[in-house]
């Protein structure tokens, strides 16, 4: 790798997504660039009596082009979303995994909480109807690693398989680990990303109990407001993002279209608290530094950061502090935005979808905005690309995600050139 420590270069050749803004990457990216919000009242269940009654849900998603009725009925939504977005990404990459490639193609897909909704519904059946009425699909539909498992079966990818279950960093950890799986020679192709579909009573009430969610129920589209003085928590969302990674010469030999190169990955732990980041978020700073080190880049080489930017009081302030620690004076000329202002926080999917936004930003020379930034918090004083998307020559983009348990993960993408 140029200037870095890795020998084999890794490029992104296919992308697929389902988000509250659209049922494809194209529809989602158009929404992002026009500053549209995907947040609305909860429809998945009756949220009467819940402190939070808003979320970022998929809209009018029809799974039947991707799965048959039997599969849809027996699987949790998170598995349906994972398969659908993987189908989109594989079609986008125009890649077929034949018998010769099968053992050199793997799958790593992350999920924060897997089939929490199925678990919740199954417990109701168990208590109401007894143990004999529990579905044989209750366990497999709940296991987070069935996302990579079912994608592996569908595309006959028999190489390395894994599932990062690292809360809101799960998608980013998955892509980083998939990147290294190729870079270190264990595979030539990886299907990777993140997924979650947890707009369910247990999830919303649990996050409410932690005081983590916005309760701006009267104004759903203004509820996710990263870096704004009035921010009061994140908005839970659902979705899936899938990326196809390939070893560079493998991609070139088959004439693949290249979105960008994965330049570096950083992963650190705060070792501080089960849910809160420490002041200054030094774990996040070390994480960004680790990614820069692996990419062989100086901080001044980064043009854009897609921030974790959850819209919680602590995360946003401390993430800004960590960015300043890493980038020093350059933090004043960096563009930083939080697309969660429009998508909400898709938990395990968020890192994968935001990685796709970084690649689209590089490809199209367009910086996605931070919406709802009406009164910037004085403690958050970077260029957040407020309100409207902006043109820019973006050669490199960094994506941060942080999760409960003190997990930090950072990816760096760059424009591909021989």
């Amino acid at each position, binding site marked *: 790798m140029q200037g870095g420590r890795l020998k084999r270069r890794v490029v992104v050749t296919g992308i697929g997504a389902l988000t509250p803004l659209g049922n494809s990457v194209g529809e989602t990216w158009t929404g992002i660039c026009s500053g549209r919000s995907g947040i609305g009242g909860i429809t998945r269940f009756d949220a009467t009596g819940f402190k939070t009654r808003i979320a970022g849900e998929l809209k009018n998603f029809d799974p039947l082009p991707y799965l048959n009725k039997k599969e849809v009925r027996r699987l949790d939504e998170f598995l349906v979303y994972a398969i659908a977005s993987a189908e989109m990404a594989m079609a986008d990459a125009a890649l077929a995994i034949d018998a010769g490639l099968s053992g050199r193609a793997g799958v790593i897909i992350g999920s924060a909480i897997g089939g929490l909704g199925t678990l919740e519904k199954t417990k109701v059946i168990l208590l109401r109807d007894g143990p004999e*009425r529990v579905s*044989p*699909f209750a366990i497999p539909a709940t296991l987070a690693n069935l996302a990579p498992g079912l994608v592996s079966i569908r595309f006959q990818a028999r190489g390395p398989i894994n599932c990062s279950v690292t809360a809101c960093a799960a998608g980013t950890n998955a892509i980083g680990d998939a990147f290294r799986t190729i870079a270190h020679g264990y595979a030539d192709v990886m299907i990777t990303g993140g997924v979650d579909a947890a707009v369910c009573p247990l999830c919303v009430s649990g996050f409410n109990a932690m005081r983590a969610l916005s309760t701006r129920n009267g104004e759903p589209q203004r509820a996710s407001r990263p870096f704004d003085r009035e921010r009061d928590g994140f908005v839970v969302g659902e979705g899936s993002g899938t990326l196809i990674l390939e070893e560079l010469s493998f991609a070139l030999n088959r004439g693949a279209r290249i979105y960008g190169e994965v330049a570096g990955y950083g992963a650190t732990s705060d070792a501080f608290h089960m849910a809160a980041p420490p002041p200054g978020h030094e774990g996040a700073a070390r994480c960004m530094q680790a990614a820069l080190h692996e990419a062989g880049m100086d901080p001044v080489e980064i043009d854009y950061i897609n921030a974790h930017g959850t819209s919680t009081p602590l995360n946003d302030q401390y993430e800004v502090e960590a960015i300043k620690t890493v980038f020093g004076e350059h933090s004043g000329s960096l563009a930083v935005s939080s697309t969660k202002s429009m998508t909400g926080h898709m938990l395990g999917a968020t890192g994968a979808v935001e990685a796709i936004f970084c690649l689209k930003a590089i490809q199209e020379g367009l910086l996605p905005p931070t919406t709802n930034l009406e009164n910037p918090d004085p403690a958050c004083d970077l260029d957040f690309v407020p309100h409207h998307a902006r043109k820019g020559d973006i050669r490199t983009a960094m994506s941060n995600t942080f999760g409960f348990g003190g997990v930090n993960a950072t990816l760096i993408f760059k424009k591909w050139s021989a």
Partner: protein
Amino acid sequence: MTLEEKVITIIMEQLDVTKEECKLEASFIDDLGADSLDLVELIMAMEENFSVEIADNELEKIRTIQDAIDFLKSKGVQ
């Protein structure tokens, strides 16, 4: 609706197959694409619909649609 029609309706719903595929001699696994977990779920649906209990050793004998109908009849289901 006859017992046969009721059974076939449940099978169509559970296994996502057509009425034409549901020939009486059709095997759940070989002809209707069911796996072992589908079969468990299908049997649970029959138990629920016909208010019968099907033991695991009886389940092993139910391989075709006709087997299921015969079994239900033997339990007194009309």
